[in-house]
């Protein structure tokens, strides 16, 4: 026992890569969930993100490399609410890994644990790419992330009971820092209350609800379909008089529609990181919100 502990300490001190065997292999569909799993698990978790912040998570190829990753995963964390419907089922079907099938303990859908906005019973594809279970871009409200963290702790404790205490301690620490950060963000973002945003896609409804920003319009005439010239020129007329405070897009979205509208209306066009890695500044979950609020405030000046 003592020898084991000595070896363990030696590993920790020397940070020998050979000893750094993670207890939980996490396959996250999006970078924010990989970051959250790492916050809670530290070195005990090896988290891989299937997508980057520069990729539209609606449209991902079910690549061989992703199938191989799912094959070896202990835990799959995805936003859910049909965000990954075009590719995740194909990965799960081909990966032959019963531990992470829907219904198994190792399959975690983050959007289950928050109150989803824009859920609709009106399922008609003429309305575009709609998500019947509500808007899946839940990570733009840090209160949602807090709720997901609590649920994720339960899942991680269940899957890796040996490290339960570590996960609990790390969760308590994260949770405290997160609540403190939320207070700071909310204070800092006070001037954004009542401001009006035109967004490329409906990716920001949770952020808007959180900070009291009004969604004045979308560049996409129909959710999920590229902005059309007709719709953009209508927006030019609409916002020439009424105005809005920012035009917002995610890094993976075409910059031309928002630039075009910005040039004609004088409303500043912004790129906001939708997830970790979306901008150079958004290096982790904390920096993600720092940067979102910083960029929004910057546009008001």
């Amino acid at each position, binding site marked *: 026992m003592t020898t084991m502990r000595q070896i363990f300490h030696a590993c920790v001190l020397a940070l020998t890569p050979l000893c750094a065997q993670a207890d939980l292999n996490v396959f996250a569909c999006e970078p924010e969930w990989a970051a959250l799993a790492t916050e809670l698990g530290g070195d005990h978790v090896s988290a891989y993100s299937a997508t980057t912040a520069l990729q539209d998570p609606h449209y991902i190829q079910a690549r061989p490399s992703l199938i191989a990753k799912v094959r070896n995963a202990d835990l799959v964390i995805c936003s859910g609410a049909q965000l990954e419907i*075009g590719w995740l089922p194909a990965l799960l079907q081909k990966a032959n890994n019963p531990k992470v099938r829907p219904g198994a303990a190792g399959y975690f859908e983050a959007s289950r644990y928050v109150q989803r906005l824009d859920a609709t019973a009106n399922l008609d*594809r003429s309305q575009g790419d709609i998500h019947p279970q509500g808007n899946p871009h839940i990570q733009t409200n840090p209160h949602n992330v807090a709720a997901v963290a609590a649920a994720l702790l339960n899942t991680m404790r269940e899957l890796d009971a040996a490290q339960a205490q570590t996960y609990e301690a790390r969760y308590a620490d994260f949770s405290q820092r997160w609540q403190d950060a939320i207070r700071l963000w909310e204070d800092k973002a006070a001037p954004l209350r009542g401001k009006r945003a035109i967004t490329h896609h409906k990716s920001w409804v949770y952020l808007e609800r959180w900070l009291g920003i009004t969604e004045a319009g979308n560049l996409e005439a129909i959710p999920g379909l590229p902005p059309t010239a007709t719709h953009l020129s209508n927006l030019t007329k609409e916002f020439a008089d009424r105005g809005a405070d920012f035009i917002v897009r995610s890094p993976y979205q075409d910059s031309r529609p928002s630039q075009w509208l910005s040039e004609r209306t004088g409303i500043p066009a912004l790129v906001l990181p939708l997830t970790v890695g979306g901008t150079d500044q958004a290096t982790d979950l904390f920096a993600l919100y720092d940067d979102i609020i910083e960029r929004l405030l910057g546009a008001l000046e």
Partner: protein
Amino acid sequence: MRVDFFKGAILALFIGFSGDLMAEDTDIQTLRAELLELRSDYESRIADLERRLAIAEQNAMQASYGALPTAAASASGNAAFNPAIGVIFTGNAWNYSGDPEGYAVQGFPYGGEAGPISEGLGLGETEIIMNANVDDKFTAWLTAAIAVEDGEAAIELEEAWVETTALPAGFGAKFGRFFSKIGYLNDKHTHTWDFADQPLPYQAFLAGQLVDDGLQLRWLAPTDLYLELGGEALSGTNYPASGRGNSGAGSYSLFANFGGDVGRNSSWLAGVSLLDAAATERLSGDEDNPLFFSGDSQLLTAQFVWKWAADGNWRDRNFVLQAEIMRRSEDGLYEGIGLAPALYDVDQYGWYAQAVYQPVPRWRVGGRIDALSTDNPGPAFDGSLLEAPDSDPRRYSIMADWANSEFSRLRLQYTRDDAGLAGDNQWGLQYIHAIGAHGAHTF
């Protein structure tokens, strides 16, 4: 409690304030200042309370969600167990400069449903797809194709399979009727093809696509490099097999697929497969001069697919390069009308290469070359459809398509055909529309 206290305090302050009208200006100002201070304190405390309430609500909701079984469905009643249902609509308008009525590729008598797209306006297959989990260990899939043949609608059972979901150690098994996993295109559904028709080697060697009844076993290696090994035992009913040889275990296949990523932009998939089939009086060739083959048929396939998108962001711009090469070895006896029974031992080759580029969302353009070549089977086959052609059958195709959404696609295709017709120019329009459940597409 705290809120009530503050409300009380403010109320008391107001009463005291109104009751003391004779107070001096300084007193009033002091009181005003105090009131303001109280008010701002009160507001910040209320905001704090609201914030804590929001967090508590989130936590409570999380707790209640956490209590739900993970597979909880929102619908109630028996309808909650309905499978996902989708319907695919396809149709073509095709024009040939020659006459496609007598379309035949010299040296490669087609079997099964292989052949050119019907001339003129026509409905393609209408497919109904249903799938759902059976229970915690099985999932099932049905594809029924409704086709109109000779003016009558007929339902064809295209796929009906059950697949395991709970086998350990990277194993998976599928049984029923399914598209064989040999090659790259063979198990791809018609509506996911990049061109309206199958390339020549698929037409000549697999009668379009090999679908059969049987059992498939797959194993996925626990490595970061994608490595899938598998095999199938098939009844041997369909081309290139026939007659359910070997007591109804007529064909078997082996396959290996590898794949991975190269940097952030590219990913690849490569594979090899072998199909071994037994044929008993297998029908091929044209209706008036049918040919019958009895013997062994082996098909060896190698394929490679490369996909590229800037930063891996597939939606805006992407590029796909895809190629397959096949070798078929048949050894047996051919006979037919106008053909004396003769031994046939021939190797044939087929390949295609295609590239498809999506420069902007919705629009794609692509090109494809497909070709066949064969050894001469010998003088016994001179004058028959099996005699090797003077020049290798070959086609060149280009296409452009537009997809309004993931669910609709319109395609224009041009093919220069030097395979079944000499120097034929073929123009076609195709539509592919889908309603119902959102399918997930494989790589």
